[in-house]
């Protein structure tokens, strides 16, 4: 990335679009989605933005004549496309009938969803064979309205479909367009676009979060790993924070501000998501019962996502003599964008896979094999945070009392 990291520069792309029948030529950053291109670049503010992750439908526009989410279509991805916004449907016959029907049926109140709703409704008028209420409701399920309760909207769409079919205008089948995402021209249509790789962004270190003694875990799960070594040996190893951290993929210790407290970082990958959590954990353990508790808190760079949690571990004899079962009870709370995206089940799956790697590394370590490469990016994947949090805690826990 040497060439890339030299200086800040204009990273925008030149973009040719046919918008509402007019050729437009502009520049946009690759990260700018079509809705912002339309609103900020061309002052076409009829396209509304709601959720910006494809759920609410407010930004729906026509791309090459077919409805698409403008918030999930990045500028370069629709280069050369024909875009029709709500402003471009003034003279459209179906849109005119829909506007009249929306008026008649009181199908809007605040109007925020209406541009996207009209574009989705127009698509249904074109495609549905008849004015079937169930299919209309299913077809509008990708457009959220928080005012009307949908009754008026559905009635308006039914009315327009019924009228048109009564006039002998049949449904269309989706046409004979080429294969592939609408709005995306193939390599022969548009010259290959290439924007320079941006210079590396500075990585801000996350703030160290304080550990809070009592918290309510929003999610809990238990995990059991088995290693081929006796419980006492395993429990003793858990007293060696560095060794445990080395066995934990993606983990790195950064300090020990107090005898019972460690600081560290955990880097986790789940599919395309990579996150680095930094945090602090307080560790207690009881050699009598071979149990311990790790209580921790952490956040990712920028502090956008934060987690808190505890891991209680218990080392007990395994099924076969000379083996041990490590029972981990994990409870955590996650806030921020990761929580918005993540589903607890995915975290458990990630935890399961990290746990398996951890057990393998632990077994290797106990057998005298060299420790795996510390920290860094193991290709573990999964929903980042929660895991990271629990992992970090787990490894931190082991460090409470060093032999």
């Amino acid at each position: 990335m040497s060439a890339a990291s030299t200086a800040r520069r204009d990273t925008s792309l030149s973009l040719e679009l046919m918008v509402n029948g007019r050729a437009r030529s502009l520049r946009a950053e690759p990260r700018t989605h079509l809705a912002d291109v339309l609103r900020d670049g061309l002052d076409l503010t009829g396209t509304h933005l709601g959720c910006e992750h494809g759920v609410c439908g407010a930004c729906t526009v026509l791309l090459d004549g077919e409805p698409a989410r403008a918030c999930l279509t990045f500028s370069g991805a629709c280069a050369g496309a024909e875009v029709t916004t709500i402003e471009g449907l003034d003279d459209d016959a179906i849109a005119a009938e829909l506007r009249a029907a929306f008026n008649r049926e009181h199908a809007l109140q605040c109007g925020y969803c209406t541009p996207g709703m009209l574009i989705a409704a127009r698509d249904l008028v074109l495609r549905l064979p008849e004015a079937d209420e169930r299919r209309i409701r299913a077809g509008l399920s990708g457009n959220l309205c928080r005012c009307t309760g949908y009754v008026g909207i559905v009635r308006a769409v039914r009315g327009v479909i019924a009228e048109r079919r009564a006039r002998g205008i049949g449904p269309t089948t989706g046409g004979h367009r080429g294969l592939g995402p609408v709005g995306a021209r193939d390599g022969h249509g548009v010259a290959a676009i290439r924007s320079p790789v941006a210079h590396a962004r500075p990585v801000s270190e996350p703030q160290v979060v304080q550990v809070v003694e009592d918290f309510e875990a929003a999610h809990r799960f238990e995990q059991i790993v088995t290693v081929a070594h006796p419980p006492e040996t395993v429990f003793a190893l858990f007293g060696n924070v560095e060794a445990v951290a080395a066995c934990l993929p993606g983990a790195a210790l950064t300090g020990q501000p107090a005898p019972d407290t460690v600081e560290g970082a955990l880097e986790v990958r789940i599919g395309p998501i990579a996150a680095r959590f930094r945090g602090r954990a307080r560790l207690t353990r009881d050699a009598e019962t071979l149990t311990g508790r790790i209580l921790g808190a952490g956040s990712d760079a920028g502090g956008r996502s934060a987690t808190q949690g505890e891991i209680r571990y218990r080392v007990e004899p395994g099924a076969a003599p000379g083996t041990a079962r490590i029972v981990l009870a994990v409870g955590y709370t996650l806030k921020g964008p990761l929580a918005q995206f993540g589903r607890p089940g995915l975290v458990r799956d990630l935890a399961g896979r990290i746990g398996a790697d951890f057990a393998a590394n632990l077994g290797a370590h106990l057998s005298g094999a060299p420790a795996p490469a510390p920290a860094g990016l193991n290709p573990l994947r999964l929903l980042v945070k929660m895991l990271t949090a629990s992992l970090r805690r787990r490894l931190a826990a082991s460090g409470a009392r060093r032999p």
Partner: protein
Amino acid sequence: MKPAPFAYERPGDLSALLARLADAPGRVKLMAGGQSLGPMLNLRLVEPDLVLDITGVPELRRAAIEGDTLVLGACVTHADIEDGRVPDVTKGAMARVASAIAYRPVRNRGTLGGSLVHADPAADWVTSLVALGAEVELASASGRRRLALDAFVTGALDVALAPGEMLVAVRIPGLGPGIAWGYVKHCSKIGEFAHAIGAVRLDPGAGHGRVVIGAVEGAPLLVPEARHLFGGRIGPDFADRFEAAAADALLREAGMTDAVARHVHVTVLARAVAQAATTLFAPTRTVSEAA
């Protein structure tokens, strides 16, 4: 939210794309329709240095029949399948699955390949195509290979792609005569990710059957030979022989501890079995109700 800055390239042919994928520095993410990656970029859960848009490659936007197998390029969209713009070898089964994915504006850009590589356990293609016995074709600058889809999907959002490798095509074997097919998913809201999916591909004539339980926490749960879910024998009366208790035991073994979740999955699977019985004797070819 707006994505963090990224560079963007859109190669016009496959060799240029693979070469760039092999040599690009930093964090590189391939993007097809962007309907899964887009939200993650907008939420800044993913912050790549470079987004490589693969939709400019004509080879990835093709469909072909090879013998009894349908070969779909990675960039074929859900709507392409829903509308019948690609050939059908599954008696409409794939069109029905496609028509109930998310919402029409998402289906118009979301792709088959993108969905499989994203490998969300609750997504439709991951489960339905494992049940159909699909294979994926992977390519890198150094060559190509094929992999059974169930081996490709290794966990939640996790697939067996090597560095520099991408999915270029999906190969779907046809549903021959006498094969019963059922696919049912449960969502609390239309278009959202499923809470439970059941998919069955049964051959009562030959006594074989493939059953997949999807929308679980990891990769879909595949039972390649599912006789034990039907009292040890899959015959024309398979719908009456389905044993919910055996399916429940299977889920329990797989680590699903929540009894309610198991109940939902077993119920959805039973509905898929019942649907398979109806398609076998009175094939329904209508595209699903979702518009």
